[in-house]
């Protein structure tokens, strides 16, 4: 009896193995055709409620219309470590396309230098860039500088006097300004805060002379005339701020945006990436998503996997250089 059971178990095990093998040896074409076969998970490396999270949720609310086989995409928040924890989880996930992640400038191009992360832009598979926001240098309405030129003249004449607040130490806003200082030789005083809102509050309360924050965060106060944007430190002009010059237009070669995009674990099959890319591209063009983004003040900003990889690489290299120059890393 015992022996029979053992034999049966062995047969069953063999059958399972065979089934497993046949499954995995199926051609990749077939696999892509059937992808996805269940719901997909997007890891958002921040707490619920931020721009990255809300943008992800806006996209996933329509994604089932564009994904083959009507499956859904669920947002899972894994915050912590300034985005590194969630991004690491995506990096370590099974490369089957069922666990992908949103990532942004910080965890992808800054943290790898400072925190010794397991991943780097070269080791993840970019899917698509969905959002990009430039930063602006703003001053209070009663500040003496009307234009970027007047301000530049002041800071050149008064090195180390001008205080500006940012979203945080070692983030895009800070690094951009360090890059600006490195190129122009202008010395500024950086006062980091915990997020865009406190940085803005510090400016409004007169505790700093300027602030470098995302356009989204600055818009309401710019519209009401409480603050004035002097210069855009990003790569493009966002709506409502067409009159504000870019740094690149003022002969300073600094242009970094705060971008958000989707990545997959390394070695995810190309056709799976293609299915995901195509679906999310269509979702990004969906009117409902465009409307939601507009209300949030976020600009859809598409980049293909190759372009996205290039953007990541460019920022990654630039940040390394600046972090070294600023003495944050060796």
């Amino acid at each position, binding site marked *: 009896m015992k022996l029979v059971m053992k034999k049966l178990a062995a047969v069953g095990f063999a059958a399972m193995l065979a089934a497993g093998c046949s499954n995995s040896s199926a051609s990749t074409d077939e696999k892509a055709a059937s992808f996805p076969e269940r719901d997909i998970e997007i890891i958002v490396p921040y707490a619920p409620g931020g721009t990255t999270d809300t943008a992800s949720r806006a996209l996933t609310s329509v994604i089932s219309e564009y994904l083959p086989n009507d499956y859904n995409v669920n947002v899972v928040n894994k915050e912590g470590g300034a985005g590194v924890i969630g991004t690491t989880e995506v990096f370590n996930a099974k490369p089957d396309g069922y666990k992908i992640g949103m990532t942004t400038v910080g965890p992808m191009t800054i943290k790898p230098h400072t925190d010794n992360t397991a991943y780097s832009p070269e080791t993840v598979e970019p899917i698509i860039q969905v959002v990009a926001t430039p930063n602006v240098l703003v001053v209070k309405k009663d500040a003496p500088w009307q234009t970027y030129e007047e301000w530049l003249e002041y800071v050149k004449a008064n090195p180390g006097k001008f205080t500006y607040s940012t979203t945080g130490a070692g983030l895009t806003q800070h690094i951009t300004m360090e890059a600006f200082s490195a190129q122009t030789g202008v010395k500024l005083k950086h006062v980091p805060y915990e997020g865009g*809102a406190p940085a803005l509050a510090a400016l409004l309360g007169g505790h700093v002379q300027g602030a470098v924050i995302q356009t989204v965060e600055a818009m309401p106060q710019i519209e*009401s005339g409480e603050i004035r944007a002097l210069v855009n430190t990003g790569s493009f002009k966002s709506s409502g701020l067409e009159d504000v010059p870019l740094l690149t237009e003022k002969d300073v070669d600094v242009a970094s945006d705060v971008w958000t995009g989707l990545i997959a674990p390394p070695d995810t099959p190309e056709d799976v990436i293609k299915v995901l890319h195509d679906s999310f591209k269509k979702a990004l063009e969906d009117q409902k998503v465009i409307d939601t983004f507009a209300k949030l003040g976020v600009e859809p900003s598409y980049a293909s996997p190759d372009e996205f990889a290039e953007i990541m690489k460019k920022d990654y290299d630039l940040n390394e250089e600046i972090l070294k120059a600023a003495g944050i890393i060796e």
Partner: protein
Amino acid sequence: MEQVLAQVFEMQTLVLVFAGVFLGVVFSAIPGLTATMGIALLIPYTFSLPQVPAISMLLGIYIGGMYGGSITAILIRTPGTPSAAATLLDGYPMAAKGQAGKALNYATIGSFVGGIISCIILILIAPQLAAFGLKFGPAEFFALAVFGLSIVGTISGKNVVKGLIVAGVGLFIATIGMDPIGGVARFTFGSINLTSGVSFIPALIGLFAVSQVIKEIEEKATGHNKKKIKYKRERISLKETFSYWKEFLRASVIGTFIGIIPGTGTSIATFLSYNESKRFAKPERRKEYGKGIPEGVIATETSNNAVTGGALIPLLTLGIPGDVVTAVILGGLLIQGVTPGPLLFQNNGPLVYSLFITLIIANIFMLLIGLFAVRFVGKIVDVPKNVLLPIVVTLCFIGSYSLSNNLFDVWVALAFGVIGYLLEKFNYPLPPLILGIILGPIIESNLRRTIIESSGDLSVFFTRPISAVFLTIAIVSFLYPLFKDLWRKLKGKESIEEDIPA
């Protein structure tokens, strides 16, 4: 105006506000779910709703969420939210004395009164107050937080020295993680899980709830089981409630005031309010604080709901969210096409009024839900310990995990559970530890910001009026008990064993 009223009193709006408040209470009562999460998860659902009902629901969650944490804090010593941490101080001792019903009733009424008073302040003088909130720069934040530290004496119970030691440990724990100014990791030992610091809520859950479970197990194992406590359904008369009118009023004002200053946080309001309540109490009553008296519960629960109206002031008038919850609400408002800020009151007056009315309705719903729930939830006390404790432990660990879906946080809860158990075993008070963890980052980052801005000149702390006032009170609070003691000794009197509020 009529149109606004019609919109607010539409069935859909009322139902959604009710649902919002209810969800808020449930989300904040269960450890590991927070009102912030509730709001964030419901925002996609509000995409398709009209403006007033959508925003009303979010405000409902906010109001309910401030209150719900008190239920678990009082009954099972598990603060579901940081804002309920101070409620433990007297809430749980009251429950341990068999007065859970009374404590819950006072928490409910306090929350309601705090909510309504802060709401009235919001309606009457929002724009004027918003400008005041902005006066708080780094120097002022630093001074306020140092003043907050002077509370250590109040919440240390008998042994102030041990309280100070524990507060120091708390301040140290707060330095773990990313340096807020330099952007470098400290004390993380290379772990990415620690780069954003020790997760606060899991630590809180561990310190109070897990440690309590360990203690109960020990008591059971060693046979030192205390007598069985039976839940009494106690009603409190209106007369009794009114006798605490000073407490309600003081806590409401403190809560609103702290709410107005962006970036301070609800837990500070509750601790400050508790401290002031004790400071103003009669000397013989002072000794009772921490042993389970209504004043302690009222002071904390009234002040945390009073923060709601206060925090909405900078949010609506300046577009600046003071904390995570209001930041999420801001996202919800933007989605609805409402841009809070200086122009909101001009361009969208009717909407603002509808929000005000909704806030009052939400507070009334919260009172009703609370008073109704008290009748049932209090029964938790009657559940046998061998059934209740496993449930509490499960809740603690699931809760710690679900906050950011990170197993590391479960270890944090467990580690802090052991720390909490050991500290209490050797008579070290736990609340100063929490205070240190809360105030540490504020003190450090603002001290350094002030120094950057003033180029190293420390005199700004005393030349800026608000900062000077807070620091002076803090210094007096630290020194007064010493001098008082010295004076007594000089006059040859015995030093009275009194636990003086710092």
